[in-house]
């Protein structure tokens, strides 16, 4: 069984002429999780969007060792952000089926595919199996969130980038989602989550972001408290 490793070095990013991330470095092994912590506006979402390739980094490198060399990290990742990417006019299963057919599957390092390749099983697993043919516009906020999460279960991708994954979820759903994260990690996958809440996962590291001062392109970043659980990287 080959394993994968994500290496992120000296990552900086600017948005709207303001530097929001400065010199962030970490390593993450397959089967491990990384929680990105820090107060509001510190750049947690920006870091996830940069890893996903939605925001271009102004400096630094991101690599997935053991992954597909011809694909960027974002193409091998699931991004689960604040928005649910659902169309109210399509039914629950049509929404999910589209993403399953559209997304290129990247099997995990140990060769396993999706946790729930079958769409109905995926919907059942997130607890909305009874809404299969209902237009997703009728779902509640928590149900929409769970439907969106079912995308991660039905298409295999080694890296999960989660932005406040448990928002709008009740305790039972949160528990269930943590179970899927554990399952994903046991299959050799990685989870990077930005969150305020303590997610009780095994094999989890923390990355504390602190505010970046000064204008864009400023020569030196302020001292950054970068702690990445099992693999610490202090990179100047």
């Amino acid at each position, binding site marked *: 069984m080959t394993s994968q490793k994500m290496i992120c070095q000296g990552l900086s990013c600017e*948005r*709207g002429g303001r530097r929001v991330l400065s010199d962030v470095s970490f390593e993450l092994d397959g089967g491990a999780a990384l929680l990105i912590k820090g107060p509001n506006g510190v750049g947690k979402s920006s870091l996830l*969007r940069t890893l*996903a*390739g*939605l*925001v*271009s980094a102004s400096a630094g490198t991101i690599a997935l060792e053991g992954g597909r060399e011809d*694909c*960027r990290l*974002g*193409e*091998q*990742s699931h*991004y689960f*952000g*604040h*928005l*649910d*990417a*659902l*169309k109210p*006019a*399509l039914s629950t299963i*049509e929404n999910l*089926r*589209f*993403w399953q*057919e*559209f*997304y*290129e599957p990247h099997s995990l390092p140990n060769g396993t595919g999706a946790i729930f390749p079958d769409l109905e099983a995926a919907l059942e697993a997130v607890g909305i199996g009874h809404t299969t043919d209902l237009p997703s516009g009728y779902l509640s906020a928590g149900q929409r969130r769970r439907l969106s999460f079912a995308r991660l279960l039905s298409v295999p991708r080694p890296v999960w980038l989660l932005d406040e994954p448990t928002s709008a979820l009740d305790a039972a759903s949160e528990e269930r989602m943590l179970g899927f994260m554990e399952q994903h990690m046991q299959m050799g996958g990685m989870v990077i989550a930005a969150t305020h809440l303590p997610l009780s996962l095994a094999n989890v590291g923390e990355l504390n972001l602190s505010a970046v001062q000064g204008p864009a392109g400023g020569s030196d970043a302020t001292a950054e408290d970068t702690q990445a659980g099992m693999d610490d990287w202090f990179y100047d």
Partner: protein
Amino acid sequence: MTGSMTNTRDAAHWARALFIREFRLGVRVGGGALIGVLFFLAVVTVFPFGVGPDMKMLARIGAAVLWIGALLATLLGLDRLFQADREDGSLDLLVMSGRSLELVVLIKCAAHWCATGLPLVLAAPVLSLFMNLEPVAMGAVTLTLLVGTPALTLFGAVGAGVTVALRRGGVLLSILVIPLCIPVLIFGVSASTAAVSDFAPFKAPLLFLCAISVLAVVVGPVAAAAALRNAGD
């Protein structure tokens, strides 16, 4: 099995899924397919009331009125082409999926045209009756709209990509796109009127129209994809 064969089959698979999704969204409630046709109807029907019951005059300006109506109806639905996806987060996933964004744009445009452009083409012969067009002119307008409206959608996609992050970007989109659509309008109308004229050639402007549409198929997706890639910031 060779890699390229797998890739081709794979591309056909996701392209089909995207086309079906976009087409469904276009024709379902709130998708804008019916709105476009109704707007086309509204624009064309006000002309006889404004111009008056001068049948010869209506027949002379009929092709131009139909073309302008189709242009405005096309622009009406285009502002939501990418904006709806951006607002619900789908655009992020489409951009980072690793699928060719140019191809994604092209497929979205194709589905959008089938849902909103094709009904305009089909409505044109009926609306020609309001404008007292001869049967030959009716056929010519319908044919030129069939050839020319894809170019309107594809040029519009560029404007939709550029204005995707703006609230109320629809007006700006129209201002950006109308200059690009003027050649389409000129050749479309001149081919339509030439069909019933003894002097003007029909084939030359029609071929120019085809050329513009082919150009739009190449330029539109590339430009719109470039705009969308920079919209993530």
